[in-house]
């Protein structure tokens, strides 16, 4: 029953092309790239349905109609039929031509070419988080990508360690992030929203925890985000908890791996200059709130197996952690 209901709803949702409760559905394209894949898939899907029905009907008919019954004559020992053989060699070949032509056409239209004024974003996969750089805007951020709606975006994808795959399904197909190599995808998002995705190539212990978000903003909102990101990091007010946090940050191992503009130059972990403005932490795993931040700072590997940010030795005191959390949250 359960199975029935879900098949029906899934099929229905697909037919309606509605994203609804399925944030990573490939049936709810929100960009030209995703739409092209979707259209092609539907084409092929219906061909497949036709072939499926024809073949399974023939098969079912054969096993029902030609059941052995007492008294029926021995079957005729037919060995083959040349014309039939030729027919059923040609028929699939012809259908495949109808699949192949739009396929090749779509391959070339989705090859990642963009107009010169496209927004360029560089994606670097890390175990297990995403680094985003906007070379023309001078922005570096992590895990949450912002792009403007209706504008061409070219994403250049590579990796800092092992092979990952960048995939935000509603915006388009995945491309592998391969060390020593840059791959491109291009898309033009057609509606604003907060779209989720995740790494699609097995990349080690926390592959399942390597999620990402792409926020498609209206032009003004995107511009506001760009301005915020380009600004120097917020300076915590004197004698605040956040300022204590900054001190803790500066004397701890944090600075070895993280960048906060003007505070620390580490490049191994995510850039934290504006971490307070992000909605999630730990590559899209948890909401960016005090409780999760505190747990994350205290013991990241317990939340994300294999995380390279090990437990701090010696451990930070609760007070230090609270201060750090306040500081990071102040970095809007």
């Amino acid at each position, binding site marked *: 029953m*359960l*199975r029935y209901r*879900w*098949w029906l709803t*899934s099929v229905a949702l*697909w037919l309606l092309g509605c994203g609804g*409760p399925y*944030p*990573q*559905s*490939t049936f709810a394209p929100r960009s030209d790239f995703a739409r092209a*894949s*979707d259209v*092609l*898939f539907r084409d*092929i899907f219906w061909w*497949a349905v036709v072939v499926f029905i024809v*073949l*399974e009907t023939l098969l079912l008919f*054969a*096993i029902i109609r*030609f*059941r*052995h019954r007492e008294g029926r004559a021995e*079957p*005729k020992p037919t*060995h*083959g*039929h040349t014309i*039939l*053989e030729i027919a*059923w*060699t040609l028929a*699939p070949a012809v259908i*495949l031509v109808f*699949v*192949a032509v739009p*396929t090749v056409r*779509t*391959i070339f239209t989705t*090859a990642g070419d963009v107009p010169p004024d496209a927004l360029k974003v560089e994606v670097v996969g890390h*175990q297990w988080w995403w680094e985003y750089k906007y070379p023309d805007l001078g922005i570096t951020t992590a895990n949450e990508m912002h792009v403007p709606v209706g504008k061409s975006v070219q994403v250049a994808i590579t990796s800092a360690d*092992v*092979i990952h*795959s960048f995939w935000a399904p509603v915006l388009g*197909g*995945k491309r592998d992030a*391969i*060390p*020593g*190599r840059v791959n491109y995808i291009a898309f033009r998002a057609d509606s604003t929203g907060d779209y989720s*995705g*995740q790494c*699609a*190539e*097995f990349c*080690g212990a*926390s592959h*399942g925890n390597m999620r990402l978000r792409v926020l498609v903003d209206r032009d003004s909102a995107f511009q506001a985000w760009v301005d915020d990101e380009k600004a120097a990091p917020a300076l915590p007010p004197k004698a605040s908890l956040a300022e204590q946090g900054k001190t803790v940050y500066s004397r701890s191992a944090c600075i070895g791996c993280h960048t906060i503009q003007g505070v620390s130059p580490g490049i191994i972990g995510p850039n934290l200059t504006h971490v307070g403005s992000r909605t999630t932490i730990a590559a899209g795993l948890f909401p960016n709130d005090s409780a999760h931040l505190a747990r994350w700072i205290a013991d990241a590997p317990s939340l994300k*197996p294999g995380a390279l940010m090990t437990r701090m030795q010696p451990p930070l005191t609760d007070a230090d952690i609270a201060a750090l959390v306040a500081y990071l949250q102040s970095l809007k």
Partner: protein
Amino acid sequence: MKSWLTTTDHKRIGLLYFWTAFGFFLIGGIEALVIRAQLAQPNGHLVSAETYNQLFTMHGTTMVFLALMPLSASFFNYIIPLQIGARDVAFPRLNAFSYWVFLCGGLFLNASWVTGPLFHAGILNVAPDAGWFGYANLTERQFSPGPNIDFWLLGLQILGISSLAAGFNFIVTILNLRAPGMKMMRLPTFTWMALITQFLIITAFPVITVALVFLMFDRFFGTHFYVHEAGATPLLWQHLFWLFGHPEVYILILPAMGIVSEVLPTFSRKPLFGYPVVVYSGILIGFMGWGVWSHHMFAVGLGPIADSVFAATTMLIAVPTGVKIFNWIATLWGGAIRGTTALHFAVGFIAMFIIGGLSGVTHASPPADLQQTDTYYVVAHIHYVLFGGTIMGLFAGIYYWWPKMTGRLLSEALGKWHFWLQFVGMNLAFFPMHFIGLLGMPRRIYTYGPELGVSDLNLVSTVGAFLIGLAILVFLFNMWWTSRRGRPASNDPWGGATLEWSIPSPPPVYNFSVIPTVAGRLPRWRTERHEPIQDPPAVPPAPIHVPGGSWWPLVAALGLPVMALAALTQTMWVVFVGVALLLFGIYRWAFEPFEV
């Protein structure tokens, strides 16, 4: 006991292959059930991320190399000499060697589950954990420092030797030991598909061996075959792996296609429709299987031209595959179909393989594939092909040839229960995966959030997986029960057309008291061209020389895991022990008197 350790009888080796492979099949199945239990609900925490990664790696590796291939090998061993009218394979001791090497390789790989403490780690800690495809550079020492990947790459090299040795053996057996009158175009279809499979094995396995040797050198000797900092590319691994990997898919499916091509004619009392077409399309698939490897790599970004070419070749390979399906249906058409369990599985094979084939066409198209690859959609696809296809086909073979191999019929009633449970179970388990994937769940993730909206579908899939488990339990019970109470099988319980049915079940050690002379493609059926042949007499008219056993294949085979162990523990002197054992075995083997 000694007679089993030293046996060179293809039938005994076939049974050894069967029981060993079936044991590994159960282990791989249990791994799958743990995986499904973990995924039954979002944020599952039955096992840790690290354990989960080992489970899916070992599930894939076990099913491909330790269950499906050797289950096919078990039929190659038992059935091919009987189908071609031979007394044994061409090289009986090489055959024993293949088996022992396979056993060693399988045990070596699975030893990784329990030997953690030897490497200062816990149990369930050092099993391979980078996927059955083991993509570099995750497998480099830098990213996988433990012995996990070492177990994998050494185990696979051992298993490769086993497959290669068996490949040479069966090619020669099929080409050279055919009974008089058994022309190539009179070979039973199963034997034909086996022959193509062997050619694929001997050409594909060297390629993965080279890939594994590079990986071994990278991990043990600090070379840089897959290290991009040194100017290399990790993509070399993917090209080599899939150059092997796609022919490997046909290595897995062609034997099952061969089985189905035997079962359908027998139970519809009609010759295989378009025998030459089925054979030639098999050969064509074998060749074309070499030209499609990059369709596993569309997301790699090879460029639009390469993508177009590989999309085209991949779609092209659907043509000979489709032809086979039409020919199977035409074989049933107009027949007098008896719904035995074997026929159920054979028809189940066709029905499920159609689905797997069609979903395959949807990801032959690169832009569509970019949304599908590395998601559960592909998991659904491969399971429709390898479970719905290969395993259904292998079970058809088991129910078909079991009486020949054991002398007892399996229970048909339990067999039907087995079939329907498995059929419903697999569709419950794997059909929802199409949606799970298209709704955005990648494969190989140990956990997923409820927000993806695929929790219920995953639960259904898990229920289906456990139904499959139940089906296998029914089968185990069937084997156990009929081994004591089963009806004894006559020479020919099904009315088969091929030579294996002309001799007792199980056959005597010499197989044929008199080697038959074959006049047609269906030697035991009356056709317009010839009369059925006489079954050989029960008592051989003249004494038949049967080769005795030999210890040396076993001794030589033991050298390989010893060498692998030496590499694993990085102790040089043990390598020499292994080499010495291997050489000693080979020399004694070469110089012992052994008449074939």
